């Protein structure tokens, strides 16, 4: 089925995720869709699969406009989407999952469904036991089952969102073979990825999204030079010479020391981490969403306990200790979602300072309000001591969160510290973080913004598909090289050099 979108626009608040997109995908081909985080890939796919509806523009299937009322409606129209994490019912068997999710009338009997499933599995080269329970299968197998379910329910267009993130290399090979077969049968495959090499191997065309728009307008036939695609994804990489700042050598013990640490969160596992994070530097974690940066930050904050290995904070072994112990050891964690797990929206800045007072039965209101007033003046927060945090703007909330960091903190973990902030607010936040660094803190931050990583890091660590690279001094890194590493180009070589 040929699908096309015309002037498709979708806004989330002030953010325009898809900005008058016009693009079409021909039948019988595999189409790669590339773009950095927040480029609008997922939004476009969700629009096509009926999960969200557009603000403007229209979607055409075989030249006929169609308004999708939901994912079920989209599947009836022939569009099926495979999500990054499986969306199925874990305690069901393969066959039950297929039957319960099939629209009425697709299968005449359980027997017919079983036969159809086995036939399709054979054609696609998948090895599936229809009576196995889904929670006993790997993510890759569940993905195969999901693909087959969508095809059996009549999908003519298959959308895969980052399908290789949490599956093995062998499963990825099987997946690619199956996708080629599906396309050869005349169906359309949309393959969303940030891994350039996979797109080069698999796709017939590529569409690059950047800031909600297609760059350059229209599809490109594959193959394309890698550097060209990178420059499309990340913009022209500026060649500004880095400002080299010699890192101070500090005799104090490292703020964090990881010894053979293995940690797991969901389907992502980081193995054998060995790092010493010294005081007095800013370390940027670069990588596409879900490559492991967040897991590393949460490990360092004590929110995730290592499965194996030791984590030493300021010379004390805190393996397995909770987040409160890490906090007492001088570690401060600033989450990206400020109101979700950063601060308490209904309470005021004074209330937060009162919570931090820590001693005595009664709340010392006066001291708390005085501390809040000082923070407001020093950090230029636009608020009164008793304004609820939820009523502040994003930049002011972020400044408030920084102001709440105790003066004796040794390590600051900041997840996307300037997310959603304008340039001036972001600048102000970085002034504060740099002042903390100069005062002897180790600041580790993650950011999807390569310019931010390049501008503020003393060292950069690249995360790629659940693997954490070695720290690279900022002075030895160019923006182009960083973009390559994030896409996995040369990542193995980097890790190998560091190990030897």
């Amino acid at each position, binding site marked *: 089925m040929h699908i096309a979108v015309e002037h498709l626009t979708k806004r989330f608040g002030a953010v325009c995720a898809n900005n008058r997109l016009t693009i079409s995908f021909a039948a019988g081909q595999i189409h790669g869709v590339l773009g950095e985080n927040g480029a609008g890939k997922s939004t476009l796919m969700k629009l096509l699969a009926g999960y969200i509806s557009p603000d403007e523009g229209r979607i055409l299937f075989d030249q006929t406009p169609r308004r999708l009322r939901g994912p079920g409606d989209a599947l009836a129209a022939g569009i099926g989407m495979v999500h990054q994490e499986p969306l199925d019912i874990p305690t069901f068997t393969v066959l039950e999952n297929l039957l319960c999710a099939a629209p009425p009338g697709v299968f005449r009997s359980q027997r017919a469904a079983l036969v159809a499933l086995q036939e399709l599995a054979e054609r696609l080269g998948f090895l599936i036991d229809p009576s196995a329970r889904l929670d006993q299968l790997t993510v890759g197998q569940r993905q195969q089952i999901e693909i087959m379910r969508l095809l059996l329910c009549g999908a003519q267009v298959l959308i895969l969102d980052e399908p290789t993130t949490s599956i093995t290399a062998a499963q990825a090979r099987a997946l690619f073979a199956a996708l080629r077969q599906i396309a050869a049968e005349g169906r359309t495959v949309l393959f969303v990825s940030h891994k350039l090499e996979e797109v080069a191997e698999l796709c017939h065309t590529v569409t690059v999204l950047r800031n909600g728009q297609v760059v350059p307008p229209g599809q490109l036939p594959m193959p394309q030079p890698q550097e060209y695609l990178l420059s499309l994804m990340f913009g022209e990489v500026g060649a500004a010479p880095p400002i080299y700042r010699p890192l101070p050598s500090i005799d104090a013990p490292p703020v964090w020391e990881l010894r053979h640490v293995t940690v797991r969160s969901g389907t992502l596992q980081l193995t054998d981490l060995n790092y010493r994070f010294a005081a007095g530097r800013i370390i940027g974690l670069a990588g596409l969403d879900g490559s492991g940066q967040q897991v590393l930050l949460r490990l360092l904050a004590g929110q995730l306990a290592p499965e194996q290995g030791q984590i030493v904070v300021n010379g004390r072994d805190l393996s397995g200790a909770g*987040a*409160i112990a890490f906090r007492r050891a001088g570690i401060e964690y600033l989450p990206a979602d400020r109101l*979700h*797990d*950063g601060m*308490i*929206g209904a309470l005021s800045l004074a*209330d937060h300072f009162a919570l931090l007072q820590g001693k005595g039965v009664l*709340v010392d209101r006066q001291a708390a309000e005085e501390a809040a007033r000082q923070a407001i003046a020093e950090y230029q927060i636009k608020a009164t001591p008793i304004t609820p945090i939820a009523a502040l703007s994003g930049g002011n909330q972020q400044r408030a969160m920084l102001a*709440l960091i105790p003066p004796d903190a040794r390590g600051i973990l900041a997840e996307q510290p300037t997310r959603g902030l304008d340039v001036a607010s972001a600048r102000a936040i970085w002034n504060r973080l740099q002042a903390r660094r100069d005062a002897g803190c180790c600041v580790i931050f993650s950011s999807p913004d390569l310019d931010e990583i390049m501008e503020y890091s003393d060292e950069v660590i690249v995360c790629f598909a659940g693997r954490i690279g070695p720290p690279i001094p900022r002075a030895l890194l160019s923006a182009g090289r960083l973009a390559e590493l994030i896409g996995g180009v040369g990542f193995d070589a980097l890790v190998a050099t560091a190990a030897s």
Partner: protein
Amino acid sequence: MREERLQPLAILTRPLLALTAAFAFTTLVLLSTGVSPLEAYRLVLFGAFSTPVRLSDMIMLAAPLLLCAVGLSITFAGGLYNLGVEGQMIAGAIAAMVPLRLWPDWPPLLLWLLAGLSGATGGALWALLIGVLRRYAGVSEIFAGLGMNFLASGLVLYLVLGPWRRRTSASLSGTDLLPLELWLPTLDRLRLAPAAPVIALIGLAIVWWALTRTRWGLEVRAVGLNPAAAGRLGIAAARRMAETLAACGALAGLAGMIQVVAVHHALIPNISSGIGLLGLLVALLARADPRWLLPIVVLFASFTVGSIQLPLTLGIDSAIAGVLQGALVLFALASRARR
């Protein structure tokens, strides 16, 4: 500025709307049964204040109700739905019976103190079991609480029919009455035991102070609003949750003790009489704001006591008080919905 001047009016519109809707709904129910709504309302709203006997009955219902509602306002502040309050009241009543049965010859004042202490401890331990189930078995406090309510009902039934049965014969109407000198002293010829409302008001004052003035109260509210952020700020969230449950259980246990020594003067199977659940309605309506608890408790208790006369004078069931209470909470919650 303009907006600020409009605010007091805007704050009042929604509760007034809810009040009107609740009465409209109850009126419809009354009309459908063919009785005069005005007559029924006269009894329900003012019946409790018509004679000293009824007034004293109302106060004796309001005292345990206030204790439960005050306790629930702590758990609400901590973000927990303690549906197990009914069971905690029963556990408190059972625990309060223990010293009264063991040492009936001891001085009454000492025994009342012991019964109060034991009742509060029993209720708190019963509530802590919910906290343990939540923390270590991942059971929602709502289901754990409901389950523990059944367990408590079963336990009290077993005691009344088994080990603590009447000397004459086991009876569902309860254990033997306590010796007269162990009844909490009442005002002349009324059933009003002044100690009960005094205990309840002291409980209200302490909890109001703790929630609004102490660091513990601030921490509990922080945990209730956002446990993840509270944890990031260094508050032991799980521990605070357990403490709120224990505090609520202790107050419910005190309510159970009052039921034993001041209302029923025995352990009866229906010792909690639905007071805990009514307390939930009060706490929901008061939005866990301690300032509203007392007026709403008095209102609800007077509805219940006033409606007792409905079957005698109008020939309809007294459950209409429950309809009115339920409708008030329902429409108040609906009026608070964002849009």
